[in-house]
C-alpha cells in the first residue's frame, strides 16, 4: 500500500492549524458568540403565516405596540417568522405577539414561544463552560492513565483546537449558539478523542513492536495504517450528519453544522495536531517501556 508522508508535511499543516486557530480566536474576541436564548435569557416567538409576509411591516406593527427591541427574521421558510424580544417576559407574550401580528387576512399560528429568565441563562452559561472544561479535564486524565502524560497533552491540545475552531466559525458567521450546539460540541470532543485514541493506540503498538527510533517514520506508518479506518468512520459519520442537516429540520440545523465542522476538524486534528504534537513534546521509546504490558491475548475456547 502506498505510504503517505504525513509527518513530512506537518509544518504546513501546523501553519494551517495555527492560522485557523488565530482566526477563530480573533472572531471570538472581536465578534463574540451569538449566544442563543438558552444562555442570554429573553423571549422568542415563532409564528407561521399562510403567505409570506413583509418583514418590515411586521416590525412596524410590533413597534407600534411597544415591542421596540423586537428582532424579526425568517426561520427556514419565508412564511415562518421568528420574533426575538430582549424585554423581560410578560405574561402570555406568545399570544400577545400573535394577536398583534394577526390583523388581516393573512392567518398567523403560534408555532412555539420560549422565555428564559436572565438568571437561568447566566447560570446555564457558567454551567456549560464548566461542563466543557470538565469534559476536557476528564478525558485528559483518562488518556494520561491509559497512555502517558505526553499523549494526554497532545490529545488535550488537539481537542481544544477542534472546539476553538468550531466556536470561531460560529462567531464568524454569527450562527446561533444554543444548548443543542453545546451538546454537539461535547459530542465532538467525544468523537475527536475517539479518533485520536485510535491513532495513539497504533502509535503505541508500533513503538513497542519496532526496533528503530525514527519517530516520524513510526508515526507515519501508524497514521497510514489507521487511515482507511479514519476515512471510513468519518465518512459514515459525515453521511448521517448530512442526512440530519438536510432533513432534520431547522431546530437542529446548527447542531448538525457544529457536528459536521467537528468531524472534519477532529479528523484533521487527530492526524496532524495530536500525532504531530507527540514529536513536539519529544515522545521517546522510554516513555512507553515502563507501562504495563497489555493483557495477553488469550485463545478463545473452542
Amino acid at each position: 500500500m502506498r505510504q503517505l508522508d504525513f509527518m513530512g508535511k506537518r509544518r504546513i499543516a501546523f501553519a494551517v492549524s495555527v492560522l485557523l486557530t488565530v482566526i477563530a480566536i480573533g472572531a471570538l474576541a472581536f465578534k463574540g458568540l451569538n449566544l442563543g436564548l438558552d444562555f442570554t435569557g429573553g423571549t422568542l416567538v415563532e409564528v407561521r403565516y399562510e403567505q409570506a409576509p413583509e418583514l418590515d411591516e411586521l416590525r412596524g406593527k410590533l413597534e407600534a405596540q411597544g415591542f421596540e427591541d423586537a428582532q424579526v427574521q425568517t426561520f427556514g421558510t419565508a412564511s415562518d417568522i421568528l420574533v426575538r424580544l430582549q424585554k423581560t417576559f410578560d405574561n402570555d407574550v406568545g399570544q400577545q405577539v400573535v394577536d398583534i401580528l394577526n390583523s388581516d387576512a393573512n392567518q398567523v399560528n403560534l408555532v412555539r414561544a420560549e422565555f428564559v429568565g436572565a438568571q437561568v441563562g447566566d447560570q446555564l452559561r457558567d454551567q456549560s463552560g464548566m461542563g466543557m472544561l470538565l469534559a476536557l479535564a476528564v478525558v485528559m486524565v483518562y488518556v494520561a492513565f491509559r497512555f502517558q502524560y505526553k499523549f494526554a497533552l497532545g490529545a488535550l491540545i488537539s481537542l481544544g483546537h477542534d472546539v476553538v475552531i468550531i466556536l470561531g466559525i460560529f462567531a464568524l458567521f454569527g450562527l446561533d449558539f444554543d444548548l443543542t450546539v453545546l451538546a454537539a460540541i461535547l459530542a465532538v470532543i467525544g468523537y475527536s478523542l475517539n479518533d485520536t485514541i485510535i491513532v495513539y493506540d497504533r502509535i503505541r503498538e508500533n513503538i513497542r513492536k519496532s526496533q528503530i527510533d525514527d519517530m516520524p517514520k513510526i508515526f507515519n506508518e501508524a497514521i497510514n495504517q489507521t487511515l482507511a479506518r479514519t476515512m471510513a468512520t468519518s465518512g459514515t459519520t459525515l453521511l448521517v450528519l448530512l442526512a440530519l442537516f438536510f432533513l432534520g429540520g431547522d431546530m437542529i440545523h446548527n447542531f448538525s453544522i457544529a457536528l459536521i465542522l467537528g468531524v472534519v476538524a477532529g479528523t484533521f486534528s487527530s492526524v496532524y495536531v495530536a500525532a504531530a504534537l507527540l514529536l513536539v513534546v519529544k515522545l521517546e521509546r522510554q516513555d512507553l517501556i515502563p507501562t504495563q504490558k497489555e493483557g495477553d491475548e488469550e485463545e478463545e475456547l473452542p
Partner: protein
Amino acid sequence: MLNRYPLWKYLLILIVLIVGVIYALPNLYPADPAVQISSTASGSALDQERLDRLTQALRDEGIDIKSSELNGNSALIRLEEAGQQIPARDIIDQRLGDDYTVALNLADATPDWLAALSATPMKLGLDLQGGIHFLLQVDMQAAIQQRLEANASAVRDTLREERIRYRDTTINDRTITFQFANEQERNAAREVISGQFPDFEYSTPDIQSGAALAMTFTEQAVQDLQDYAVNQNLTTIRNRVNELGVSEPLVQRQGPDRIVVELPGVQDTAAAKRIVGSTANLEFRLEARPDTPEREIETFHFRNNENRTADLMRDVIVTGDHVSSASRSFDQNNRPQVNISLDGTGGSMMNRATRSNIGRNMAVVFIEHKTRTYTVMEDGKQVEKRDTYTKRGIISLATIQSALSNRFRITGLDSSAEAADLALLLRSGSLAAPIYFAQERTIGPSLGAQNINQGIMSVVVGLLLVVLFMLARYKAFGIVANVALGLNLVLLVAAMSMLGATLTLPGIAGIVLTLGMAVDANVLIFERIREEIRAKMPVQQAIHAGFERAFTSIVDANITTLLVAVILFSIGTGPVKGFAVTLSLGILTSMFTAIMVSRALINLTIGGRPLKKIWI
C-alpha cells in the same frame, strides 16, 4: 478451533436480541389520542348507556371515534385524529357538567401480550409532542416573609393571652421586632415566647423609648423552611396539574429551589399558567368593632369595587389551607358560589370564632402573592429586579347568622370561571411559597409532528446511506456490519423504552449520530483483518487477530465518549439530556452488536472453515 463460539454464547446473544426485539416492538404501535372521563363526585357513576349517548353526540359533530371503553368509574374514548381531541373534550364537558373531569389523554395502543410483559413505547419529549414546559423559581425571600408574618401573628396571640402589652411589630429581613413600654414587659414576653417559638434567636436591641425584643430566624430554620416550601409546592402543583387533566405530566424538583413542570399536549399557556402559578388563597376575618384598638385593625378594599373599604381584624380566623374540599355551584339567582368544607382543625377554629360573634360581620379575603419583574440598568448592564407584593381584596362581607361549622359557602365572585378556578385552587392546596416563572416553552402540536417526521426521515436516510457505504466497502463483511447495525438500532430503542427514557429531537439526532459512529467498531475490526490478510496471514487467523487486536482500541475510544456523554447528561436540561442518554446507550449497544453479534455471525457462517479467500 479458531472462530467458533461455544453454544452458550450464541444462546446468550440470541436471548439478548429476542428481549431487545420484544421491548422495542411497542414503539410500532403509536398511542391513540383519547379523551378520558372520570366522575369526581360519588353517586354520579358512568354507565354504558351514558357513554353510548356521548359517543353518538361526538359522531354527530363529525368526530371520528376509534373505540370507547368503560372502566368502573371512568371511560376512555379513543379518537382517530389528535386534532379532534380538544373539540371532543369541549363537547363532552358541556354535556356532563361539573361532576366529571374530562381530560385529554394519550392511550396506549400496545397489544395486550406486550403489555403483559410490561413492554411500553418510548415517551415522547415535548418538542416531539407539543406542549408546555415551565421552570418555576420558588421565591424564598417571600416565603420567609410570609412565615414571619404568620409567626408575628401567633406571637401577638400569645402575648394577648398572657396579658402582656406590646406596642408595635415590625418585620425586617429575617427579624421580627416587638416594642414594649418597658423592660419588665419585654422580659416577661421573652420568657413566654422563647419557649414556644424555638426557631428563632432572641436579642434585645436598644431603642429610644421603651424596650424591644428582636427574634431572628435561625439558619437551620431557614434551611428547613426552604425544603418544606419546595416540597409543599411540588405537592400542590402536582395536585393542580392532576386537576387540569393532562396526560403524563411531569412535576419535578430541580436544584435547591426550582420546579420543572411539563404538560404535554397542553396548548393554552395562559390557562395553564393561571392554575399552576397561582398563589391565590383565602382568609376569613372578622370585621373590626368600632372600639377595636388601631393596631389590631387592617383596612382592605373590595375586589369588585376599589372605592369601598372595610376595617377588618388583623388576626385571621382560618385560611384556605384548612379547606378539605371545594366545589363550584350556583345559587338560586344563578350566581356562582363556592361550597367549602374545612378540615377538623379549621372547622373547630371557625366554630369557636363564629359562636361568640353572632351578629358581627365576617369577611372573606382573597389573597394573591404576586411577583413583578422589571429590568433596570445598573453599571451599564441590564439587571433583572423582582418585587414581591401581596394583593388582598375582600370578596364578601356578610353577617354571621349562626355559628358556622366546617361546611359553608362563599359568594361574591365575579364569574363562574373565577369560582371554578378558586374551587380548584382551594382543593389542591395553596403554595407554601410564592413562585415565579423562570423559563417557559410552548411548542405547538404542528411543530411536534413536523419534528417527528423529519427526525424519522433523517434516521431512515442516514441508516440507508451507512448501509450502502458499508456494502460498497466491505462487501460480504459489509452485510455482517449492516445486520449488526440494524440490531443496534433495535437494541437502542429497546433500552430506551425499558429505561423509560424520553425521546426528544436532539435524542433522535443522537440516534442518527450513533448510527454513523456505531459502524466504527466494525470498521476497525475489518480494516485490521484486511491488514493481516495483506500480511499473508491465513484467513481464519486473520479474522481472529482482527477482532482481538481491535478490541482495546474500541474499548478505549468508547469509554472516553461515554465519559463525555455522562458530563453532558449532568449539565444538560430537557432535550439535551435526551441527547446524552441516547448517545451513551448507543455506545453501549453498539459495542455489544459490533463486537459480539458481528463476531457470532462470522463464526456461524465461515468460522473454522478452511477458506483461502474472503470477500472483504
